[in-house]
Structure formats: structure tokens, C-alpha cells
């Protein structure tokens, strides 16, 4: 197992380095930051001075080698706009996104397991139809629209929740609610599908014949065997959330890494783009390892080998 993890880590380091090289050159293709950083009426001399100050006047390969040299010293550069270390900016934003993502995926997963399992227990029943309708609506409703309607209903009309921002526990309800809608919808569908398969398996029939209680059959026997596909889909969804929930972060004023990354790309704040990509890439690498380990825990037949 440790050998496998070591090999997987090595692959990931190579991937992350490749990604950083790619991001370095792709960001430079977007153009000269001085046009976005300086006022439109800045003189050509001011633009030249700006480029010289930040090394953008150097040939691209020199800039790249300087960047690699700085990386070796763990110097990820300064944010052009924020006047501080780009990595500091990224690391400040990432925990905000991580907390939101963890809670949304945890709640969505837990709820989906219950709803999906109960729906699968009696396919075609009223509850099953209702669960399908709700999950389809959740999976397809646009985040932006749901967020705005949520604000209008719960904050403006009913005055039950704050419109946006961070601070109290109440500030978390709407962002998490909106963020978990799509994962919940998708996971209910997956759980229902795999559970219907599992509940028609011979071992379930045997358990029924032996008089095991219905709830135990569903939640102890069938659910555990249905979890692998659910973990795969949940892992994908968690990866996309860890990457940043841009819409939710934007609408609710959540200071996460998704919005930070998009803003940095738009503003050509290269060092911040590179730092946010590095942080999220590392997080996704760790998440993938965790999912692999979870597979092995859930299904003892799965064992990872180094060769």
C-alpha cells in the first residue's frame, strides 16, 4: 500500500510540475498585464516602467527560468494587485472553499444515501417518483438562479437568513444549500440505480429468506455493496467543488479560491493564477489518494500493487 502511495505521489508531482509549466505559458498568452493594471490613459513610458519593474520586459524563456528558480526557493511571486505574496493570498482563500465543499458534499452524500436507498426499496412507489423528481430538479437547476431566488425568498421576503457574507452559522445555510443541490440530485440517481441492482442480488434474497429485517437488508447489506460507484461519482463532484464553487462564491460573497482564480485570470495576476492552480492541484491529488484508500476500506477485494 505504501509503495503504491509513493508511486502515486511521484506521478502526481510530475503532473503538478507539468501543469505549472503549462499554466505559466498559457497565462502569458493572455497578454500584457499593464493594460489591465494601469489606467487606460497611462503613458507608454509608464507601461514600459511597469513591465520592467515586474520582469515582463524579459524574453519569455528568461521569465520562465526566473520562475523556476524562484519555485526552488518556494517563492511563488507577488500578487500584482494585492501587494502581497500570491501563495499567501491562495492559502487564505482555499480553506474557505474547502470548508464549504466538505460540508456540501458530506450533507449531499448523507441525504442522497437515505433518499436513494428508500426510493430503491420500492421502485415505482410515490416516494420513488417524488425522489426522482426532486433529484432531477436539483441536478439540473442553475446555481445562479437558485441562489438569487433563495436570497429573495429567505433573506429579503422572509427575513430568516442573511443575504450573503460570512460570520455566523446562519451565513452558511444558503451557500451550502445551493452548493449541495447538484451533488444531491446526481447522487440520489446513482444510489437508487446501484441499490436496485443490489436489492435484486442473490445474497439479499437469501437474507430476506432468513428473515433479516428490511431496514438492515437495505442499509447494512445492500448499501455497503452499492457504495463503490457512489464513491466514484461523489469523488468527482468533490473534486469540482474543491476547485472552487465560482457561482456560489460570487453570489454569496464567499472569499473562496474559485472566485479568486477567475478574478486573477481576468486581471492577469499571473502569480496568483499559478499559486491557486498549485494549491488546488495538490488538494485534488490528496483527494484522489483518499478516494483510492476508501475503495480499499469498503471493498477488501481491492488491493493496490506497485507494479
Amino acid at each position, binding site marked *: 500500500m505504501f509503495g503504491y502511495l509513493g508511486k502515486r505521489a511521484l506521478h502526481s508531482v510530475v503532473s503538478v510540475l507539468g501543469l505549472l509549466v503549462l499554466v505559466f505559458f498559457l497565462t502569458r498568452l*493572455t*497578454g*500584457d498585464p499593464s*493594460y*489591465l*493594471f*494601469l*489606467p*487606460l*490613459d*497611462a*503613458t*507608454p*513610458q*509608464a507601461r514600459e*516602467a*511597469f513591465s520592467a*519593474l515586474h520582469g515582463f520586459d524579459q524574453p519569455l524563456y528568461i521569465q520562465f527560468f526566473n520562475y523556476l528558480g524562484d519555485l526552488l526557493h518556494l517563492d511563488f511571486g507577488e500578487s500584482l*494587485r*494585492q*501587494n*502581497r505574496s500570491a501563495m499567501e*493570498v491562495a492559502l*487564505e*482563500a482555499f480553506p474557505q472553499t474547502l*470548508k464549504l465543499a*466538505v*460540508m456540501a458534499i*458530506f450533507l449531499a452524500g448523507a441525504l442522497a444515501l437515505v433518499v436513494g436507498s428508500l426510493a430503491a426499496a420500492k421502485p415505482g412507489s410515490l416516494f420513488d417518483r417524488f425522489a426522482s423528481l426532486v433529484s432531477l430538479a436539483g441536478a439540473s437547476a442553475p446555481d445562479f438562479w437558485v441562489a*438569487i431566488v433563495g*436570497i*429573495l425568498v429567505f*433573506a*429579503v421576503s422572509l*427575513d430568516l437568513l*442573511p*443575504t*450573503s*457574507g*460570512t*460570520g*455566523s*452559522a446562519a*451565513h*452558511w445555510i444558503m451557500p451550502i444549500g445551493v452548493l449541495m443541490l447538484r451533488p444531491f440530485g446526481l447522487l440520489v440517481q446513482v444510489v437508487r440505480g446501484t441499490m436496485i441492482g443490489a436489492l435484486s442480488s442473490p445474497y439479499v434474497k437469501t437474507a430476506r429468506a432468513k428473515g433479516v429485517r428490511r431496514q438492515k437488508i437495505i442499509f447494512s447489506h445492500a448499501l455497503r455493496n452499492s457504495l463503490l460507484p457512489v464513491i466514484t461519482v461523489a469523488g468527482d463532484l468533490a473534486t469540482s467543488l474543491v476547485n472552487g464553487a465560482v457561482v456560489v462564491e*460570487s*453570489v454569496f*460573497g464567499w*472569499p473562496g479560491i474559485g472566485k479568486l482564480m477567475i478574478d486573477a485570470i481576468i*486581471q492577469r495576476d499571473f502569480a496568483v493564477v499559478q499559486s491557486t492552480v498549485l494549491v488546488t492541484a495538490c488538494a485534488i491529488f490528496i483527494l484522489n489518494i483518499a478516494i483510492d484508500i476508501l475503495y480499499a476500506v469498503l471493498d477488501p477485494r481491492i488491493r493496490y500493487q506497485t507494479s
Partner: protein
Amino acid sequence: MRNKGALSKIALAVLLASTASPALAQGGANNITIVLPEQPSNLEPCGSILTDVGQVLSQNITEPLTVIDPKDGTPQPKLATKWERVNDTTWRFHLRDGVKFQDGKEFNAEAVAFTLKRMTGGAFTCNNLAKFGSAKLSVTPVDKLTVDIKTEKPEPILPALLSVAMMVSPATPADKAVNDPVGTGPYKLNTFTPQTVVLDRFDGYWGKTPDIAKATYVWRGESSLRAAMVQTGEAQLTPTIAIQDATNPKTDFSYLNSETTAIRIDTEQPPLNDVRVRKALNLAIDWQGMAELFGTDVLRASQMVVPGINGHNPDLKPWGYDPDQAAKLLAEAKADGVPVGTTIKLIGRNGIYPNGNEGLEAMMTMWEAVGFDIDLTMLDVADWTRYLQKPFPQERGPNLLQIMHDNNKGDAAFTVPIFYHSSGQYATFSDPKVDTLIGEALNATDTGRTKAFQEIFSEVHDRIAVDIPMFHMIGYTRVGESLDWRPNLTTNSEIPLAEIRLKK
């Protein structure tokens, strides 16, 4: 079973840890929350001309020597009480006595010298320096409260220019931009985090004690959300909401925001080098219909500065809507061999202002209706800037460029040279008479200066028809019912907290 218990505990711990961050500073009779459209990138006083920085810093933490009166564009005393011109290239400023920075250091001539040296030192990028163009400053303290500022060339509007020079404590690092500014303003910085900026009233302020004790700034991109935050009482003020969100006459106020929209004509390229073609472009547009796109409060523009800016010509009438006359002028030009059928590229900038794309599509249709062949292209800001500034792209062909210009600095000198002088960064034409007039205007003072700029606007509008001024734009601000404050021409660049009063 034990595993399930552990999982529940972990989940509970995550929930509690996640929600245990400190609450926002809100509430309190003298405390207000202002919700801005975007996060301040930084709090460097040298970047205060940028809206996101200036709306927090200017007149609150930092103050300049002079401020521009939004009513008539004249420089008024702030940290300088008076000033006089010693000779063509030297101005003498007399400084306010008894002023202290928020760190306790004294404001004096040495502090002015330090600030201006820091601005012009080149150790970091100073955006505010853009307003000075190529002007080079040298500062000489005469005595403790008097300072001489010398320029290489005569600079009649130096007092107005200095309205963007925010005085900072001599303890401020001179070699790098900062996020913890210390100025002489009525508020000092408490905290600046990725979620809020908090300012506290500065008890040692030289002026009148403001009503507001604490101001918390938060930011939300969505206009409807900002409006809702003021409506629900989560915030008390938000600048720049969209017209469709300005629905409450008790709290929503419109104001002329110093921005002027226009289409720049590339007069070097045929058929746009013919004045009849340029006039036809102006006459072909249904301006009343266009105004509905941008809000009925917008003001039809005849020139690139708003009323209230020194040099604005109130007698200049905007072009009207006369498609028949436009078609006639085009026919005349065609008869004289002007290639009026050439495809003209109409270049827009994505997101330049609300309904900007729709406006261009409407104009394209109206131009084509009188006989023009227009090809609309939308660009992002970097590509668009290539067409805006010299050197222009070699193979650009005949083109019309969507632009918006902001001048709230009191004087047409911040507009005219850059647009209309043959060496101007945005100028696509060269007219010796206009060049001469601009030279005279820049060196003139008082009413002579005003008249000179007015004549230039008249020349470029009536005789040369060098561009297509569209509208002086309107901004909308929502102000909570507990506050007594109205936005004005300067609101896009500053929101002076000391001017906000609490209703009794």
C-alpha cells in the same frame, strides 16, 4: 457502530469549526456597513484613482492638498489652505497647521516632499501618476508649513493635479506599495481582510468630528444582492447599482457620474477621412431611442466632458437624428469619389458599460439603414486597447471604436490633449489649428482657459466632427433611510464618510 459514532463526531466538529469565525462588525447606532461592487485590490494610496481603492481610501484615510469641487471643477483647500503661482513653473502651497497623521507624526512641508518623492520614485507602480502625464515634479520645503513645487514645463492646473496626490505618513515605506496606509483623514484603518475593510473614526482628526464612528466595507459583485442588502438593513449604502435594481425612490438616487460614452472615428482611414461621412454617422442615430437602453436619466452628450468640468461648452448642441440628411451627405461624398461603400469595422469592448453590446447592435442597424456597411466586432479589453492607443495596428482599416471616458478631475486638460492633440495617445487626426488651440488652453488660466477649451470642443464637434459623443452616463446609488447623504460627480472615485450624516 463505534465507527458511526466517530463519523458523527467528526462531522459535528467540522461544522462547529467552520462556523466559529468572528461575526461581521455590524449594527450600533453610529456604525455603518457599505457594500461595494468589488473587493479593493489593495489599499495603496498611490492607487486611489482606481475606483475600488479610492472609494475606501480617498477623503477617509488619506487626504490630498486640494480637492475638486464637483459643482464647478475648481480646486478647493484641503491640507493646503491656499496657493499661489510664484513663476511659470513654480507653485507655492501653504499647508494647514495642526494636522497630524494617524500614527501621530506631524503633517508639514517635509511630509509633502516625502509623499511626492514616494509617488515619483519609481520603486513601485503609482497609478495616480498617470494623471500627471509627463509632468516632472521637484519639491522644496520653504518653511515648516510652506512648500514650493516646481515643474519642468508650466503647469497652470497643478493645484487640480495635486487632488490625486494622497499625503502619507513619512513612516510609510518608500520602496514598496502598502496595504496599511496612514494618512491625515478622519478615519484610520482597523483591519483589511479578504472579507472586509474596517475603518474607525480618528480622534485626532483636524476637522469636524464625523457622525459615523465605524465603517465596515464588504463587497458583492451582484447588483441585485447589493440592493437587497441595503433593503434588509445588512448594509446602509451601496454605490453603483444597476438601473433595474433602482426601484425605490426613497432610497435610490441617480447622479451624473462623470463618465461619457462615445464612438471614436478613425479619421485617417477612408471613407472616414471625409467630414461629410463623419457627420452622417452622427446624424443617422436615433438618440432618443438609444437613451432608453441606458436609462432615461442619461444626458445626451456633445463633448467628452460632463457639465461642471472646467472647459465644458454649454452652448454646444448635440447632433440630432436626421437620417435623410445623413443619407444626403453620404450621397454627396460618394459623388465626389469617396468610397462610402467600404466596410467599416465597429469595434466594441465586452462589458464596457451595461447594455453596451446592445447599443452597438442598434447603432449598426441605424447606420446600415442610411447606406453604411458596418461589421461589428467585440473584443476583450487588451485587444480593444490596441485600437485605442497609439501605435494603432497597421492593417486596422476604417474603424469606429466604442469608448467611455471618465473625467472627474475638474479640468478639460485631463481629456482634450489625449483625444484631440495630434500627439495624443487616442488621437486619430492631426489639425494644426486644434493643436495650437490646445497649446494655448493648457497654458491659460481662469476664464481664458475655460473659453479656450470650449473653443476646442466647438471645433472638434462642429467643424471636424471627429467623434460621435453619445451620453453623459448616470449612476444609481442606494442609501439606507437612516443616512443623510447624496451621491455626486465624485462618487465613482470616493465616498467621504465624514459627509455622511445620521438622520435624527
